């Protein structure tokens, strides 16, 4: 019964979102503010309905209701509770339901954010948001109903794909979707601005927190997925330039550009038309990502079996929203008042460089991802575009961008002084160079790229630190500390996020030093990777709740002394007749020793792949630091207080901040 009510709630949510979509349009014709204000309760009710439907499906999964087809196909009564819950979105129907749930959640939050958004803009934004919600609800109800029943009900389910029975599934998709779908708000704001024909700094201030929040979630979501693939796939790789990965990287690149261009718009009232286009493109890339992943048109290491009929529907959604929004842009953008131009050497000039390089990098990733599809549909020739392509195109665009980052932070708005900026950054540059030379000297004869990358990362971190130091430096230490504490949180956020990029760059560069070895060894046998030796103490069977496991017990030694134990295993899930490797990880500081097992021979020998991955955790820690920086920026005064530009009195009481440092980002 609950299942049918859940299904009904979804249909109700569709009707509500259609209402929410139509009302602002009607209101703009009649000028009736009551019609416009209906969008707020409609957005809340839509969210409530979808949340109820999601709850009903979760209940069915938790109680193992095998009369529901979705539960039968993706659950098993013996499955641990956490995977029963995360299994709700570990399948196509459930994950689409999570997608719209988050979409409706963002809509509800916008509806509740009364102070920060002007009413007409909010109503139009909610209308656009409702249109997206309605189309995706229709998609779920027509092609991917999670509530269909089976009669007679089987006694046992087919279990969730064992690769997904991992805590990663509980965290990664929700975070990723919060990011993907969060950009729908920026998109809705952009469309609303185009419809209204009005765009100004207030628009930028309204849209920026949403963009920043989505960006933070996407950053952590991608990092989480990368770490999951790293330990789950057992190849020791953390990024494969796989189409499915690119599908999430493209909105991230565009979203990063958007986060920066909204700053220019907010502070300088420039780059308006471009920012609107970028907001449209960012969400379009999120939709494209959804299409690429859900439709199964790509061959990826991460894809599962897919149903092509759904692909056609999503392609239709894609054409409707991307085509429609770009057409609207082409029609309305010329009516928007252009912002001012500015000096090339300035903070905004540096942010334009940021946008330029990020967009170019995003475009190369897009070409590399779609080219195989285009070529196959045109000529029938099948190709794969892999890491060599992306390393050759993406890196040459990313490196100059990273070199510009510390300069961008240091330059002043309007008119910057390149010589003064270089002078301030000189210490950072010199220290980074020293670190590079030291790294080259220590690892003489090793790969050259790694020390250079480490130097680049150090330069980014030092540049971020110098920015804070320069702005806070006073006559005494106490004054400097007080000034540092009084800097706007967005300044700290920027520095933290940029330092996070540096941390990630160091982690990536250090992977050139990772060592891999592979051997089939007997009990007591040894395998060496870098400074570490793994000794096989034995191979043991073990039983889990819904699997049996063969575990290799390895002692890791460094110079004869044991430093830890790792137990990589191979799990066999009888319900799916499928085995899955579980990598064994030993974390030493921010480095890891990583082992995975292959086949066990009849003579007790076992194939072991051992990696030493120096500084590998920095890759993901850096991403977390980036997101923390974004989060810190979100708590900045100007987002908490409605419209600070109108309340100079508030700012004057902000503490011992020297006046010249206030307006800077």
């Amino acid at each position: 019964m609950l299942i049918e009510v859940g299904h009904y709630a979804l249909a109700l949510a569709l009707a509500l979102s259609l209402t929410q979509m139509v009302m602002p349009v009607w209101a703009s014709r009649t000028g009736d503010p009551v019609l416009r204000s209906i969008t707020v309760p409609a957005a809340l009710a839509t969210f409530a309905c979808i949340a109820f439907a999601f709850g009903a499906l979760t209940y069915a999964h938790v109680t193992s209701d095998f009369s529901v087809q979705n539960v039968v196909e993706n659950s098993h009564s013996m499955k641990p509770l956490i995977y029963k819950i995360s299994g709700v979105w570990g399948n196509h129907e459930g994950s689409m339901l999570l997608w719209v749930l988050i979409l409706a959640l963002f809509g509800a939050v916008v509806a509740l954010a009364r102070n920060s958004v002007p009413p007409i803009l909010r109503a139009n934004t909610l209308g656009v948001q409702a249109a997206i919600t309605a189309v995706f609800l229709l998609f779920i109800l027509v092609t991917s109903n999670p509530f269909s029943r089976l009669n007679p009900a089987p006694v046992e389910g087919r279990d969730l794909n064992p690769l997904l029975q991992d805590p990663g599934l509980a965290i990664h998709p929700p975070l990723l979707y919060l990011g993907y779908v969060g950009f729908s708000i920026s998109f809705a704001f952009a469309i609303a601005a185009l419809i209204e024909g009005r765009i100004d700094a207030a628009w930028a201030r309204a849209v920026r927190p949403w963009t920043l929040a989505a960006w933070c979630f996407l950053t952590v979501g991608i990092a989480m997925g990368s770490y999951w693939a790293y330990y789950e796939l057992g190849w020791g790789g953390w990024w494969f330039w796989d189409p499915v990965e690119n599908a999430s990287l493209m909105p991230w690149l565009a979203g990063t550009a958007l986060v920066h261009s909204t700053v220019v718009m907010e502070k300088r009232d420039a780059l308006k038309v471009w920012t609107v286009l970028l907001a449209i493109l960012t969400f379009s890339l999120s939709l494209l990502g959804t299409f690429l992943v859900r439709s199964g048109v790509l061959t990826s290491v991460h894809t599962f079996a897919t149903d092509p009929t759904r692909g056609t529907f999503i392609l239709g959604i894609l054409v409707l929203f991307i085509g429609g929004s770009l057409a609207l842009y082409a029609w309305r953008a010329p009516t928007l008042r252009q912002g001012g131009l500015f000096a090339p050497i300035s903070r905004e000039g540096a942010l334009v460089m940021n946008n330029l390089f990020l967009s170019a990098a995003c475009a190369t990733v897009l070409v590399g991802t779609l080219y195989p599809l285009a070529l196959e549909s045109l000529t029938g020739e099948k190709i794969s575009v892999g890491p060599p392509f992306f390393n050759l195109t993406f890196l040459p665009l990313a490196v100059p961008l990273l070199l510009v980052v510390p300069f961008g932070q240091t330059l002043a708005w309007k008119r910057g002084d390149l010589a003064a900026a270089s002078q301030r950054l000189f210490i950072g540059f010199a220290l980074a160079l020293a670190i590079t030379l030291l790294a080259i000297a220590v690892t003489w004869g090793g790969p050259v790229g790694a020390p250079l990358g480490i130097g680049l990362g150090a330069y980014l971190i030092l540049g971020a630190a110098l920015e804070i130091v320069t702005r806070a430096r006073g006559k005494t230490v106490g004054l400097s500390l007080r000034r540092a504490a009084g800097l706007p949180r967005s300044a700290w956020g920027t520095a933290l996020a940029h330092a996070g990029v540096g941390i990630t760059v160091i982690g990536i560069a250090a992977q050139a030093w990772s060592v891999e070895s592979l051997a089939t060894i007997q009990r007591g046998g040894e395998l060496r990777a870098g400074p570490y030796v793994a000794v096989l103490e034995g191979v043991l069977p073990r039983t889990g709740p819904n699997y049996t496991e063969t575990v290799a017990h390895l002692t890791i030694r460094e110079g004869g002394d044991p430093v830890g134990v790792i137990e990589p295993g191979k799990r066999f899930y009888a319900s799916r007749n499928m085995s899955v490797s579980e990598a064994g990880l030993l974390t030493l500081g921010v480095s890891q020793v990583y082992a995975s097992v292959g086949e066990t021979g009849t003579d007790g020998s076992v194939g072991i792949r051992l990696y030493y991955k120096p500084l590998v955790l920095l890759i993901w820690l850096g991403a977390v630091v980036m997101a923390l920086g974004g989060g810190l920026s979100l708590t900045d005064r100007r987002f908490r207080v409605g419209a600070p530009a109108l309340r100079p009195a508030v700012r004057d009481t902000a503490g011992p901040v020297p006046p010249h440092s206030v307006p800077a980002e």
Partner: protein
Amino acid sequence: MTRRRRRSVLILVCGAVLAAALGLVLTAMRDTIVFFRSPTEVAGQKVAPGTRFRLGGLVEAGSLKREADGKVAFAVTDTGSTVQVRYRGLLPDLFREGQGVVTEGVLEPDGVFRADTVLAKHDETYMPREVADALKAQGRWQEGTGKPGQGSSGQGSSGQAQSEPVSRTAVQ
């Protein structure tokens, strides 16, 4: 600087970066893309020795041999032709005889394919699309069953396509 000069500087810089990006893409396209070939195409001399490509098909039943040092040898077939493959490394969990596989590497002059990558799939009934197409070309594919028409060892699981978790999407 005048407005006009500022604008021309902006346009110049944008043009330069975009041209650089285009140049990089075109250069990379020429050198780094990898073609997909079926065993029949390899047998038909469509591939020059020494070029990197992806070979896809079914792992021939009974062909898997494990050698010392973690080396494995197996044969990839599209039921029309067969190519011997050598690979050093751990095979993915879902690698099985009679199942679809995609490998990447170089064809040696002696006709053996030396693979450095064997692609894993996440689902036991999933058939790589390229392999499915190659098998269709040989008339060995039953549409809609998610399995080759013959030569498949029983996998226990029902034939219909599994619903597919997104989850792993972004590794992101």
